[in-house]
């Protein structure tokens, strides 16, 4: 019985170790929220952009 418990514990420990391991990345983590914010802003300004380009053909 004691032996069986040990046999069960061994793979469980191995699995736990696999879960807990965290490796720090060598590059800094960069989360660019700008991209998502901008996408909404750009969508809102899309019609204005089209108008500007059509109304100022000499510079566009």
């Amino acid at each position, binding site marked *: 019985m004691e032996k069986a418990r040990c046999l069960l514990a061994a793979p469980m420990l191995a699995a736990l170790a696999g879960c807990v391991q965290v490796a720090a990345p060598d590059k800094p983590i960069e989360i660019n929220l700008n*991209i*998502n914010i*901008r*996408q909404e*802003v*750009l*969508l*809102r*300004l*899309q019609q*204005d*952009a*089209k108008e*500007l*380009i059509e109304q*100022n*053909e*000499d*510079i*566009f």
Partner: protein
Amino acid sequence: MSRRMKLILALGIGLAAVTGGAAYAFVQGGDEASQLRATGQVGEQWDGYLGIVGSASAELRARVDAINIRRRAVYTERAAARQATIEAMAVSAGCELLSSRVGPGQYYRLPDGSWHQRQGNGPVQLPSNCPS
């Protein structure tokens, strides 16, 4: 120099100035941005401004700058009206310019700084944040 010769000289200079000015206005007039793009030395950038592909003469640089200054004025005015930043308005125009103003064989620039040449009538890559 006689008085008459001075008069003729003055008239000549005046005439040259007028015709020269008219010729200059003709070149400047019309769609200067598309003329510049057609040279292959100038391309549209993702940020809403014209850029120079490679190196350019001071004269070409001045023409590009002149257009970009006027673009910025237009972006500034519309950005204020829409309570947006000038940059956002310019980038928004950049999305439209890349998708509608880059002709076959012409150059455009993406946010990573790389220049690309549009292959024939093929598609132009747009920055990922452009509305589709």
